[in-house]
């Protein structure tokens, strides 16, 4: 099953490779991983999207917690949470195609952020599944580039991950 794990770790050189290395060394899946410093510059917040059986997910959580640089961890998918991913898509678009793209973009609440004679670039922020849906709606033939950040997640309401 798909899980979103969120963690706070020391913002130090090498911390990211400890997490990435753990996943490859133990053969865990990693669908996406996004990381950036928080309001406290000594801490980074990481969101990992992974999948596996309950036993594997339990091990992933425990192994991550065991890393000395990991300060706090939450499996967001165990409760109410929000997830968002940012995507930039450049499509081949001239004349009539461009209008159709814009229509689809509006349906998905995206924005066109760049246009040229032959291309059109769309920014879209939503759940991973919605982004997949958008790509499907546009169709692979028209897509020139896809850039996705990987999911960022946060708990709903009082579910807070903080030191």
């Amino acid at each position, binding site marked *: 099953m798909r899980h979103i794990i969120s963690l706070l*770790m*020391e913002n130090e*050189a*090498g911390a990211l*490779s*400890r997490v990435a*290395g753990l996943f490859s*060394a133990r053969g865990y899946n990693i669908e996406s991983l996004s990381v950036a410093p928080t309001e406290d510059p000594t801490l980074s917040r990481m969101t990992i999207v992974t999948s596996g059986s309950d*036993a594997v997910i*339990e*091990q992933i959580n*425990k*192994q991550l*917690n*065991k890393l*000395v*640089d*990991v*300060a*706090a961890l939450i499996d967001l998918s165990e409760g109410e949470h929000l997830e968002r991913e940012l995507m930039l898509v450049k499509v081949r678009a001239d004349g009539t195609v461009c209008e159709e793209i814009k229509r689809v973009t509006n349906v998905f609440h995206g924005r066109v952020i760049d246009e040229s004679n032959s291309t059109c670039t769309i920014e879209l922020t939503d759940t991973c599944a919605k982004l997949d849906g958008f790509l499907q709606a546009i169709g692979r033939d028209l897509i020139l580039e896809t850039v996705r950040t990987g999911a960022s997640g946060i708990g709903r309401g009082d579910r807070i991950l903080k*030191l």
Partner: protein
Amino acid sequence: MELTGAEILIRCLQEEQVEYVFGYPGGAVLFIYDALFQQDKVKHILVRHEQAAVHAADGYARSSDKVGVAFVTSGPGVTNAVTGIATAYMDSTPMVVISGQVPTGAIGEDAFQEVDAVGITRPCVKHNFLVKDVKDIASTIKKAFYLAKSGRPGPVLVDIPKDVSNHKTTFEYPASVSIRSYHPAGKGDSAQIQRAVRMLLEAKRPMIYAGGGVVLSDASAQLTDLVRLLGFPCTNTLMGLGGFPASDKHFVGMLGMHGTYEANMAMQHCDVLLAVGARFDDRVIGNVEHFAEIPRRIIHIDIDPSSIAKRVKVDLPIVGDVKLVLDELLDVLRSSRQTLDAAAMGAWWKQVEDWRAMGGGLRYRNSPEIIKPQFVLERLHEVTGGNAFITTDVGQHQMWTAQYYKFDQPRRWITSGGLGTMGFGLPAAMGVQMANPGVTVACVTGEGSIQMNIQELSTCKQFRLPIKVILLNNGYLGMVRQWQEFFHGNRYSETYMDALPDFVRLAEAYGHVGMRIEKPADVESALKEAFARKDDLVFMDFRTDPTENVYPMVPGGKGLSQIILSEEL
């Protein structure tokens, strides 16, 4: 007054009461060795290969409960040390390895003797550090020792670039340390412990399975009290040997791939299993699905949550320091009014005794013509009064030693269990002897393993280490040969050790005493003669039966009750 980074490092080691450092100098650690030279509190043991430095520090730590310390230089110094570090990691040895690094300005430029030490060791250390500022040396060393020793112990590497070891700053060693992202477990959950006691007392076919965590936590006394109080059968893993006295009537021997029939059968058929500081690894319970075929309730005590429910489902996890958990468990047990089902216990013990009889115990057919390795180990146990510190290498000799040298005390049995590192025994014995001057130390080895670090005979000479090397020389990489015999149609691919050196003359060339023993009748007298030489390293080349196999055996991937007994039984 300002000190150089190197001087600060040495002062830190003094503060940590480090007595010995095992190491090998080189370009990137020149300043460190210079600072070492100018003091005499921290003594240095010069090995002949960096792998041996780390194994020696490992043997030192395992036999003393102190943190082992090793120094290596950058590049090949670090890569040579990796096998030793991985060995320590797999067996949870507290250790701090200091490695030199090229100067900070040269990092990343493929400088001479540069490797990414932190990157290369990352998967086999508890934690590691690259110190980029001389001001961070003292606090980093403090953290390194704290991390190495606390919680589940393990090796910590501190990589120090050459320029940092020569920069100056004021020295102040932190009085205490706290790491906000690191909280090792202490006491166990009291409610869980109470549940555990109820579950144990309800058992009809109970079993206690204890591993290296008991030794690491110094909880042998607690475990022994618990087993005797409950009257349950107790088995040890390879790493746990000595954690419970082998001469106790509750002991059913080691379990696992080369464990006793009764230990493996009791493990498979018990209804309540108490696992203490053990991790259900593949060499212990074999096939996980087969193990799960018979339902049993499992209580698992371990300091590392990730060891719990990793390979088998656990009904009652207790995360905590084994010693503290057992202390509390004993208190609850002593005040409990619940009683054991005496009839069920009687029937269970009868079953265990039946298995013991069916398995025939550990038995081999002795011979008047050719030396049986098991015979040497039985005589070794007798001649040393069962009190020696024994290190081993890896293979058949290791399993026979585990089976036949009955350990009654912890920290006497020093072996590479997790990683299975050939070449471990001799350097580990050096560390054991340094930590325990005056005690009897023997390294049981094979002609394959001993050649992987035989250069250390030179270190032993320099530091006058009177280790007894018990070489069980059967001319084969015996364990691999055994698997080839069982599972590969007797095709002995590359397991015959041709062109062996004359070990007696080799020992003599290093300045030691060498003995060759070829007849069973000479085994005991030779051992007595060797162990009477208190000040000499004696290298004993026992020519043993090349066809002997280790029994019992649970073949890889099979279940515990699918155990193969000796064909002679």
